[in-house]
Every structure is written in C-alpha cells, then in structure tokens.
C-alpha cells in the first residue's frame, strides 16, 4: 500500500493505493487518524485500492468514529469497484 496526502487549506485528501489488509492496516491507520486527531477534515480517495479486507474496513470505522468525537468530517470521496463490493457487504453487517 502506498499513500499520498494533499493539503487544501484545512482539508486533507488522503489517496491510498494498492492492497489494504491486516499487514498494512496500521500504516493506513497511522496515516489517517493523526490528521483527524489534529482536527482536519479528511477526504479519503480509494479509487486506486484494488483489494481491501475487514482490516481496512476497521480503519474506516475507527476514522469515522474519531471524526465524530473530534467534531470534524471524514468522507470517502472515490472508491474502486473492488472496494465498493466489500463496503456493500460490510453495510449489511454494520
């Protein structure tokens, strides 16, 4: 997994790419959570993620929960077809 963070004023756009599994979930978590913790509005672009499992979904849930605590915004702006399928399955559960 690789990532890039774009800064637009107080907004941070995080672009992740590659595969997100248990092995790299911490790297994704450590990329996103500190930005939310610092009060930034975080937009997550997953259009170049071609595999995501439950570990990746966990990172999204943690990010959303932290953004609610911090009273800021965490949004998915673009997702790949593969990620959308996993999200659809996860929505039945969440």
């Amino acid at each position, binding site marked *: 997994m690789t990532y890039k963070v774009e800064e637009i004023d107080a907004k941070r756009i995080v672009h992740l790419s590659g*595969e997100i*599994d*248990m*092995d790299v979930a911490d790297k994704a978590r450590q990329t996103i959570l500190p930005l939310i913790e610092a009060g930034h509005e975080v937009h997550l672009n997953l259009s170049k993620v071609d*595999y995501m*499992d*439950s*570990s990746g*979904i*966990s990172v999204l*849930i*943690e990010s959303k*929960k932290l953004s609610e605590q911090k009273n800021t915004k965490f949004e998915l702006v673009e997702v790949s077809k*593969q990620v959308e*399928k*996993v999200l659809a*399955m*996860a929505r*039945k*559960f*969440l």
Partner: protein
Amino acid sequence: MSELAHTNHTEKKDFLVRSSSLKDVRSFCREVFEKLNIDQNLKDELVLAIAEAAQNIVKHAYKNAPDTEDKMVVQISCKDNKLQIGFYDMGTPVDPGKVKHREIDNIKPGGLGTFFIQQIMDAVEFKDGKKPWINHLVLTKQL
C-alpha cells in the same frame, strides 16, 4: 459461473503464519481460480473469504506467537463443481462455538471477517485436526 476448465483439481501450499504471508495466500488463490476459470466477481469474493480465514489463523490461533516459524496450509479442491478450501494450522485450538460474528447492534469492527466468510461461502466447518495439525477449517462453495 463460467464453465470450469478443470472439474477435478486440487492444489495446496504452505505459508508462514504471519500477516505478511496474506498477500501470498491471495496470489496463490488467484492463480488456482484462474486455472479453474472462475469468473472475476466470484474469484474476488472467494479470495476475500480465504484471506479472512487465513487472517483469523494469524490473529487468533497464533495470537500469542507473532514470531512463530509455524506454517499453515491452504488446500483448494474442486470436484464435481464443488469447491472446498481447507486450512490447517498448529496454533491454539479453536473453539467452534466461540467463532461467530458479533451482534449487529454492536458498532465495532471485530468479527467482520467471519461475517464476510459466512456471506460468501455455503458452509464453514471446523473438523478435528489430524496430527500434526491442531485446527482444520473447511469452507465449501457450490459453483
């Protein structure tokens, strides 16, 4: 479902029980499913279910042994359009009664992997592990 190129086919491979092996587990599955001519949608789902099961071995059966040199085996068999995926490991014995996804109203991510496996596969069965194996999980799917 596409027509299978091989109606009877079995392959197995062992992997170090590490989170860094999960990528290799997925590559192995993709290669086998390619040979079986399984369509892309189903292939993606099966790879996810298998990777989640392998992740559960790393996360739960080897919870207290992150640096183990043990290996787990993944075996994929296809017979008469029935796909059977076996997982063998020598970790802590799994209590099948405790393997379940969490309640739907509990907003925590844990257990999601097990939910994915149950959604994708037709059956999830824990069998007695025959020596040297401790755990033997079998996932099945009618193609």
